[in-house]
């Protein structure tokens, strides 16, 4: 235990302050994210769903939880149940074998609900396209609020995409 404490003390806090390498768009997204946190009064809960990805996207989504990105400190947390989720983060070209699970997960979410398509596969099927095995574009099945480019998207881009979608939720809320 002494070694554990020693290592923690020596390394210090590695967490970076979030997407700020960035320009005005990201700063604005962050501001809206903070505003939403103010309105909702809690973290944004995300249900991640792999709709047939190669697992590359999942590895990068995992990275969001490492000490550098530390998304929980930004008010974003990943949840186990769609019933607890504000946002569905979908990866992959939507295989036909996952289509039903995807739709059921979405239907299980409370409203208002957001959908973020992560990576080129969720945008249009990517390298896998649409075929007997894949539906391709996620937008053909669910209303998509934001798309994150990349194969796979890098963690910072994922963060940006999530914040863009969250901003849309705020707009949707003020509209009559």
């Amino acid at each position, binding site marked *: 235990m002494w070694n554990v404490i020693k290592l923690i003390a020596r390394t210090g806090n590695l967490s970076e302050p979030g997407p700020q390498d960035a320009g005005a768009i990201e700063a604005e997204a962050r501001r809206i994210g903070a505003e939403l946190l103010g309105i909702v009064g809690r973290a944004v809960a995300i249900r991640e769903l792999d709709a047939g990805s*190669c697992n*590359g996207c999942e590895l990068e989504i995992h990275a969001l939880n490492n000490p550098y990105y530390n998304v929980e400190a930004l008010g974003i947390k990943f949840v186990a149940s769609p019933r607890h989720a504000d946002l569905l983060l979908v990866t992959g070209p939507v*295989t036909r074998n996952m289509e039903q699970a995807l739709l059921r997960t979405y239907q299980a979410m409370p409203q208002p609900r957001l959908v973020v398509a992560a990576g080129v596969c969720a945008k249009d099927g990517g390298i896998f396209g649409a075929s*007997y095995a894949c539906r391709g574009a996620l937008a053909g099945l669910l209303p998509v609020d934001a798309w994150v480019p990349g194969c796979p998207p890098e963690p910072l881009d994922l963060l940006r995409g999530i914040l863009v979608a969250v901003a849309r939720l705020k707009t949707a809320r003020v509209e009559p």
Partner: protein
Amino acid sequence: MPLTDLPLTLRPLAGPLPMWQGAADAATWPAAAHAVQEAGGRLVSLWGKMSARASVAAAYAVQEGLVWLELPLADGAATYPDLAAIFPAAGRMQRALYDLLGIAPEGAADTRPWLNHGAWPKGWFPLHAGARAPAPGALQDYPFVPVTGDGVHEIAVGPVHAGIIEPGHFRFSVVGEKILRLEARLGYTHKGIDALFAQTPPEAGHCLAARVSGDSAVAYAWAYCMALESIRGIAVPTRAQWLRALLLERERVANHLGDLGALGNDAGFAFGLTRFSRLREDWLRLNRAAFGHRLLMDCLVPGGVAADLQAGERDALRAQCDAVETEVRKLKAIYEEHAGLQDRFLTTGRVAPPLAAHLGLAGLAGRASGQAFDLRADHPLPPYDALGVNMATHRGGDVAARVTVRFEETLESLRLLRAMLEDLPEGACQAALPPPQGGRGAGWVEGWRGEVFVALELTPDGQHIERCHCHDPSWHNWPAIEHAVIGNIVPDFPLINKSFNLSYSGHDR
């Protein structure tokens, strides 16, 4: 020449590894499997194709190297001799083969669909020439094997899991917390990659191969490139061979760092996850800076590597190996001394060596159960032949053994990386591609999870891919998890599953 006692004509396949190819008939097909098994060899993969007529193919690892056997079926025939009775791992591969091609093993014990969940009609087969995508159908329930008895109940998990992981369904039959039986149903991430290869130009196939399993992008791209280069007679420059090995070891270390952290976390030691995920992030960021991609996708191209390594980055890579080694050694000591962690790791999810041999447990998990196979040591390509790889093995077969093998392989890879960076030969990092040429070739690479195998067949003019089969070691290891969990408690399943960390996408393709 392997399998000399059988009436087989094998001819050597071009390429850097000792491989042979030949045709079998219905009698020599099972005879060859028996001969391989008796000689201590193993089944690497089983697949099929449909050109003028259907054929089924198998790849065996034998002492001398790899044997690729093909069994052409008679016109109109739709069955072939079953191999699952000899190599249990063949069972699911044969079921997948039926779903893709409509040819079935005679008298196989299990004929349930595997990849076809009902999304495409029974009797329609994706690998038949000119097969056009039918309208999606309704998904079908899967007939899991029921377990009955006093107090036995089922727990159904998935395909959507609680964490950020790939989809698959696990059906547990339990009494209280104790697992009596686990049956997995996979195929949820089936993307039709085999059919897609036929529409992919041979020069671009490595990009698709790299996305069979995103955590093994280098291993798959290398195996694909090896197959294509063998067909076309491309000599990869020495520097490019070294850089490929460097990328493969970087991929191995990245995955081991991630797994070691996750294994700590799954046993309630969040400190381990924090420390290792930080190391992994440092590692991926330098991948990005030195090679242009965090997961090293598309860094390998036919003929060599996409971009050369710059001098400044070479120093950074070397410095990182030192820094990571210092940290990993500290964490290794902490993991080993942590009583709570060892209590969860030891004896959990055990696959004893004889069972591992019977199931053909592959790669890292196999080595942790006494299966001493590592292509880098068994058939070393440059630069592994010059550097020498110390294979990490263990006979424990439990979660603890798989953790230990990961630690040892990480440290060995760091040693190899430093040696590669020290002696990296000068020269070109890419060979020019000669004009297209038809034929067949194979690639065989020890990825971080185990052996990745690619069998590639081009049309006679070399312009198109006739068949490209990508094999993931997860095919062998998924059935082994079902044995590993027997008698364990349900809450240990995530830990056991993570200790194997198998690919869903690489398996489902």
